């Protein structure tokens, strides 16, 4: 029997099929790299020259007025707007997301957990523009009712971003909590810990890397988010000076102005320079997350 298996020879055409499939797979892999490099080149070509010329002015001024005479390219207010929204949204989403993750991983009964996970994943499937609607139609009047002069402001953007990142935080957080070995739980319980003491003193420290990765990916998502933020933040270029201050982010600026900028002109190039900056920031955040993951694997 073993003999016949060893002697079985594939028909000749199989070799070519194998060869073709291997070629196809290789092509797919290589093209992914090529596309990414192409994006680098494309954005870099439009923006790098401008960046090199104006970087000093961009980083020292808060005035963004590319259509003014003379044009102003200060990005500090835009950067501040982005950081403001991202920071506020993290303050809202991290405690809530981690608490939800702990509940799902440790406290919810099996059936309820499955149900809630589906709901959370549905939340992740809501398109960003729909979140924009929610910000405009629901949060806008709500914030005005709470006393904001303008309902479309940085806080509105932060709430929308928090809701958008919540699914990511919850599902990644839950995964990393459930990946904590059962033996740790047993050890803590057998020592006489309550369930909450076990979560607080054992599970959270044990899962900290995974939780950090979840937060970092959430940051990356917030920094890059465009459409919802464009719709709800009030679109006002300024350093935020209060909770209800309207702001404008880097992404919203690009999305709003690219259509009207003259192709190849200075304004157009300035927007690409913003793109390079964003790319750089999200790259750093993802790199940080990746480093954390790698360290965890090494352990």
């Amino acid at each position, binding site marked *: 029997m073993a003999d016949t298996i060893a002697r079985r020879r594939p028909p000749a055409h199989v070799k070519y099929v194998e060869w073709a499939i291997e070629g196809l797979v290789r092509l797919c892999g290589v093209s992914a790299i090529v596309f990414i490099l192409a994006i680098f080149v494309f954005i870099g070509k439009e923006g790098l020259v401008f960046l090199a010329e104006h970087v000093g002015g961009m980083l020292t001024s808060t005035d963004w007025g590319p259509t003014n005479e003379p044009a102003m390219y200060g990005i500090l207010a835009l950067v501040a707007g982005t950081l403001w929204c991202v920071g506020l949204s993290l303050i809202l989403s991290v405690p809530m997301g981690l608490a939800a993750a702990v509940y799902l991983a440790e406290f919810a009964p099996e059936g309820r957990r499955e149900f809630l996970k589906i709901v959370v994943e549905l939340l992740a499937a809501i398109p960003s523009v729909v979140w924009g609607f929610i910000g405009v139609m629901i949060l806008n009047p709500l914030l005005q009712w709470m006393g904001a002069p303008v309902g479309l402001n940085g806080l509105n953007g932060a709430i929308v971003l928090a809701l958008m990142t919540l699914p990511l935080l919850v599902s990644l957080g839950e995964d990393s909590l459930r990946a904590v070995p059962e033996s*740790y739980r047993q*050890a803590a319980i*057998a*020592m*006489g*810990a309550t369930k909450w003491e076990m979560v607080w003193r054992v599970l959270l*420290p044990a899962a900290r890397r995974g939780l950090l990765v979840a937060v970092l990916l959430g940051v990356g998502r917030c920094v890059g988010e465009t459409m919802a933020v464009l719709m709800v933040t009030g679109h006002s270029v300024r350093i935020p000076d209060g909770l209800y201050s309207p702001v404008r982010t880097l992404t919203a600026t690009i999305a709003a102005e690219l259509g009207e900028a003259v192709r190849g002109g200075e304004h157009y190039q300035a927007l690409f320079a913003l793109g390079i900056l964003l790319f750089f920031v999200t790259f750093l955040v993802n790199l940080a997350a990746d480093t954390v993951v790698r360290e965890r694997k090494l352990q």
Partner: protein
Amino acid sequence: MSQDLVAAPSGAAPARVRGLSLWYGTFRALDRVTLDVAPGEILSMIGPSGCGKSTLLRCFNRMNEQSYVRMEGDLEVAGYDVMSRSTDSLALRRDVGMVFQRPNPLPISIRENVLFGLRLHAPKTPRSVAEGMMESALQQVALWELVKDKLDRDAESLSLEARQKLCIARLLPLKPKVLLFDEPCSALDPDGTAAVEELMDEMRGTFTQVVVTHNMQQARRVSDRCVFMLMGELVEVAPTAELFTHPKDERTAKYIEGRYG
């Protein structure tokens, strides 16, 4: 039933089991077990896989509290009525420590592992007192010399043997009355096994120790008395030497001769 009770030495029994039965769903894992554990002794429990020895051990500190477990009978451990609803599981587990099959130090520093019990049960212990308790616990398990310069290192950087010793050390600051060992050496090499057995021997008299083991030779080496279980039933309990040389029950004889299990 053939469970002739060997009279426990004088003093209150650290564990007193009377007609204890346990069901996992409809499967009967313990069948009317009656047993007394004597103060300061090392009691081993042997028997083939699935005989209920681990299940019995885990009853002692309520580690099988799942919803599908049903129990009947009387069980008293370290003065706690384990079967009573009003008994505090946390206090029971404070006084009845458990060592697991795979060393499971917590993913925190060596120091915090030893102090973990105090953090839970006596958070107001002054720092200097806690440090002293930590040192003497580590001394007692012969780890102090090895770890005194790296107390803040992750406990998982230690060898398996040292980790298992650490798991024993972390029980000591709480001054437990009973120590439960669930196959404490099955993940260790012969040297590690010898070290843990030596430790158990040193603690003889100080703590009451109950050891579940797959390893008949280990039971023979470390324990004062030995329990043989089969299919949820306590077949025989006797001084270890006697059980291995003159088993009363034919099933015990067959098992220790290696005819099954």
